[in-house]
């Protein structure tokens, strides 16, 4: 059974100039114990999805579609139900833990706060649990008494991970968990996350702009562009043979060790992602696409099946004779 089923999710931010679509009809599932990688350039809507799953977006943001978390629709919940679901069924490891921890509260207290909000335990037990959690992520238990500024960047991220596990959530949303860290620390944090995931059998939504990170942790891979998932499938297959030109470019932008051709001609994308207020007509990727066709300027491609358990939104697939896939 799926821990998370998102179907036809759309999100529009309220601005002075009117609503701006950030996510435009996105569907995906995450099975128990599975890691779904969500990749894309900044501004493609991937972080909006991460926050939107727990309805953490600014007031006035409009959300449509369905977000079924353990069988209940998050978008239809009353505030009290929502408060109970947050952190117990899904928790978030935020991007750049630099600013994700309250600077004036001891980290132990911040972890305890989450436990006490959801579990009928005494303060002492909560404190004990917080200490255990720190040890679980490789920090000494006594550091519960320290303030966030006394931790290094990587340590803060470990604290954040410990906090995310405080209420044994069914799903952990990791939103760029390694982005602001230097390379060595990135690798350590990534290994920690992967180990915890296998050990505890966590389901995870792993959001990043860095495809090379996902190659190491993800079971499935979804690639976003301009608010849509343009390609989705088993991670290994998508990596080995991307079908969407955007995925190809994205994968090409990362060096593969031992790949001589990359050193000669690094792949990558020209131009910037489109302004969500002013999306191109047709396929929103067409102005940057290396294989653009005349039809791409006018026809918005639907989702096509692209092999076993794979789909992509690109007209090239239609030409190759693929059938339209029915959204799950």
């Amino acid at each position, binding site marked *: 059974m799926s821990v998370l089923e998102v179907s036809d999710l759309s999100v529009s931010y309220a601005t002075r100039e009117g609503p701006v679509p950030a996510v435009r009809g996105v569907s995906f599932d995450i099975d128990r114990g599975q890691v779904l990688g969500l990749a894309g350039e900044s501004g493609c809507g991937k972080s909006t999805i991460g926050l939107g799953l*727990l309805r953490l977006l600014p007031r006035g943001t409009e959300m449509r579609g369905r977000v079924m978390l353990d069988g209940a629709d998050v978008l239809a919940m009353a505030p009290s139900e929502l408060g109970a679901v*947050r952190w117990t069924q899904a928790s978030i490891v935020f991007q750049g833990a630099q*600013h*994700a921890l309250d600077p004036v509260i001891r980290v132990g207290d911040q972890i305890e*706060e989450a436990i006490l909000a959801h579990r009928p335990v005494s303060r002492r037990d909560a404190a004990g649990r917080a200490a255990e959690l720190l040890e679980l992520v490789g920090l000494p238990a006594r550091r519960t008494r320290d303030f966030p500024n006394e931790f290094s960047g990587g340590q803060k991220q470990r604290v954040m991970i410990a906090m995310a596990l405080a209420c044994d959530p069914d799903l952990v949303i990791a939103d760029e968990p390694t982005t602001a860290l230097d390379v060595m620390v990135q690798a350590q944090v990534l290994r920690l996350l992967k180990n915890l995931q296998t050990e505890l059998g966590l389901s995870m939504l792993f959001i990043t702009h860095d495809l090379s990170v996902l190659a190491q942790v993800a079971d499935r891979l979804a690639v976003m562009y301009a608010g849509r998932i343009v390609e989705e499938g088993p991670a290994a297959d998508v990596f080995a043979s991307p079908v969407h030109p955007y995925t190809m470019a994205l994968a090409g932008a990362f060096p593969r060790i031992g790949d001589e051709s990359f050193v000669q001609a690094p792949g990558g994308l020209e131009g910037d992602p489109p302004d969500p207020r002013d999306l191109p007509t047709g396929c929103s990727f067409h102005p940057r696409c290396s294989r653009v066709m005349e039809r791409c300027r006018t026809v918005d491609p639907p989702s096509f099946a692209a092999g076993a358990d794979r789909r992509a939104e690109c007209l090239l697939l239609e030409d190759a004779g693929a059938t339209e896939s029915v959204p799950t």
Partner: protein
Amino acid sequence: MGEWRYVGRKLLQAGATLLFIITVNFFLFRVMPSDPVRLLTRQRGVQLSPEAQAALTHDLGLDRPLPAQFVQYLADTFRLDFGDSFIFPGQSVVSVFSRFLWPTVLLVGTATVLMIVIGLYLGIRGGWKRGRPLDVGSMGFSLLFYSMPDFWLAMILLIVFSTALGWFPSGGFESPSSDLTGFARALDIANHMFLPVLTLTLGYIGEYYLVMRSSLLDVLGEDYITTVRAKGIREDRVLWRHAVRNAMLPTISLIALSFGFVLAGAITVELVFSYPGLGLLAIQAIDSQDFLLLQALFLFASVAVLVSNLVADLVYSWVDPRVREA
């Protein structure tokens, strides 16, 4: 401990600032005036005999070279020896000063507590429910009262509540020649203080409201607030335990700096209500050109702001763990 290093550094800085203040004071009264001897020894209306003037000149060290004067001034200041007042002959500046000090402490203290509590509360509520009637109302109120000269507001309140309605006395610290004691006296004093306190409070609530509101809005946009929300914490706890606590930090130092404005406001408000505090004393000193007294008053005002800044820095170090480490 980083904490003690921080406190030590702040004390050192305050010491440097104190020295600066004293130097400014020296310059203001001894160097800038074209004839400091005359400035400091003249008195409107009364003619000092040449002998008396010479004696005073010598007493203040005005006949000595400037560096020597400065050293003596420093020594006198640290001994709190500011010479004798002209307005109150035969009384030292310090003794006059301390007589007028307490009414001002009472007035400014009461008003400051009220304006901080009300202003911060409105700022928290307004920032939290931004754009709601309370916020919009507070915003209009703040702008309006910010634009009002304190003394004008004082006179308007005086006309309405004293002259027209007769609810409050028109001025003074307490009823003259009354022999009230104990609680009755306290009530009488409070009755006299009501309008001055109201003026100052109304005049400065807006400042605290605006500072707190914008600080809270900044904090509400921070990632850690999203983290707290994601943890499923109740909204009122998000506000009071996390947002307000962080928003207080920048507010503390601004509160300290704006203390100078409140003191300044007290000058004209005391004048309007003929409230016998340091502000009224300062105006009497100006009117009768009692510059020794004025000098001491200016020094006091500066030191009061300096001390409130120092207190703010220390409170800051106590609330914000980041400062302790730096």
